[in-house]
């Protein structure tokens, strides 16, 4: 039923994904949210190589067990907050996959189409399900600067489930729903 998508996320793999289809992501992904996006946008040097990579809009709950980091809970955060930074970051860092929730703006949608990137909707709040998919915490960057929730965690995941909400042609599921629900609302408020 769902397609598997494995790291490295090449342009060809990403372009083969269809809007509304479900995918299982495996391999290396990086968490990054408000502070990291702003940092990169302002010209900060990325501590990780994002090319053909995936950025996961999330701020996990972490714990140290036997001297090693483990993820306790790691659902996606609202991606719209990253909208003003995203188009430039997709272009400059060759990000191919964004995992988040709630959908993203037209500018991000267009950047996805232009540079070959997809936006995957993970289920907001389903944080333990995601945590179960994390097989290894490979490293953490900018922890002291940003704190635990905003740091860049390098995670190896297996079978992280999501829906293609913006495909590499720039079509957006959420945009369609927004428009159809707008028409419905207008009818109700007549």
């Amino acid at each position, binding site marked *: 039923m769902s397609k598997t998508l494995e790291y490295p996320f090449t342009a060809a793999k990403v372009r083969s994904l269809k809007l509304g289809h479900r995918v299982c992501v495996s391999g290396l992904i990086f968490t990054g949210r408000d502070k990291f996006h702003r940092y990169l946008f302002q010209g900060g040097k990325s501590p990780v190589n994002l090319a053909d990579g995936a950025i996961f809009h999330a701020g996990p709950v972490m714990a140290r067990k036997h001297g090693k980091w483990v993820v306790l809970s790691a659902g996606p955060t609202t991606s719209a907050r990253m909208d003003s930074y995203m188009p430039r970051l997709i272009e400059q860092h060759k990000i191919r996959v964004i995992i988040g929730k*709630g959908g993203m703006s037209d500018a991000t949608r267009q950047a996805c189409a232009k540079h070959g990137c997809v936006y995957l909707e993970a289920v907001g709040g389903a944080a*333990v399900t995601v945590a179960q998919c994390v097989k290894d915490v490979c490293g953490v960057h900018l922890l002291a600067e940003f704190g635990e929730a905003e740091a860049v965690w390098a995670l190896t995941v297996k079978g992280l489930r999501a829906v293609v909400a913006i495909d590499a042609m720039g079509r957006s599921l959420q945009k369609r*729903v927004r428009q159809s*629900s707008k028409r419905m609302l207008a009818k109700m408020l007549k």
Partner: protein
Amino acid sequence: MFSVRKSLWREHIFDLIRRTATDLPADVERAIRRAQLREKRGGNAWWVLGEILQNVKLARRHDAPLCQDTGTLSFYFIVPPGFDTNALVGATREAIAMATRAGYLRQNAIDPVSGVPYQTNVAPGSPVFSFRQGARKTVDARLIMKGGGSENVSAQYVLPDGELGADRDLEGVRRCILDAIWQAQGQGCAPGILGVCVGGDRASGYEHAKSQFLRKLNERSPNRTLARLEASVMWDANKLGVGPMGLGGRTTVFGVHIDALSRVPATYLVTVSYMCWALRRRGMLLGPEGGLKRWLY
């Protein structure tokens, strides 16, 4: 008498936090299950709700926070006359620090000036306390955790609102609520639950709207006019088709709770507090010495 028992209070409140963070109230879980039955089998809405249900089960089994955003901690206490609330505040703060160290709470309180997170979630404005004096001898302690995504899509309207065609009447209120639901789309982690306050001022409006989440999902407003409005808004909201996570579907909201406060002649506010599907609410009844009587909800 109370201070001697502080460790007992701390333990109970720690347990309250743990249970709130890791498990949904039964009525909310039931509503999600029912919603899944309404969706087309195999479709994305059905899938999202299935993922949510599985997540709830996993969180319970692994004793882990069901959402990584452990939210703002809002405590609602009803205490007997003459009760030492300072000691209760102290015990609650200690319990929060413990729960943060144990991984039940994320480091979720951040200093907006320096940008630095507080270590233990005990900070200015965290947690939020509400105390009321009751007539009983028991202490009623309730906790609501509300995440930031849902807080960001909450909204306050000043009536009349020309753009929405919302006048200072219940039809105007209805329009505001439906607009808030539409604006939120999937960004507040739909399907959501709405707490609405009609009237009040800017501050009391939000506070009162949020406190509606203490009600069970099937608890209708005792005011019949408002109860009818709750039902009508819920019906309309689910026809919008926003669906789980804004991907489309038949369930956009699980519950609508509306209440009213008096207003001043010049102001007519409608405040809509949006709660994500992960409505984390728990409560307990404690004896005046800190012994647990029973769990609420």
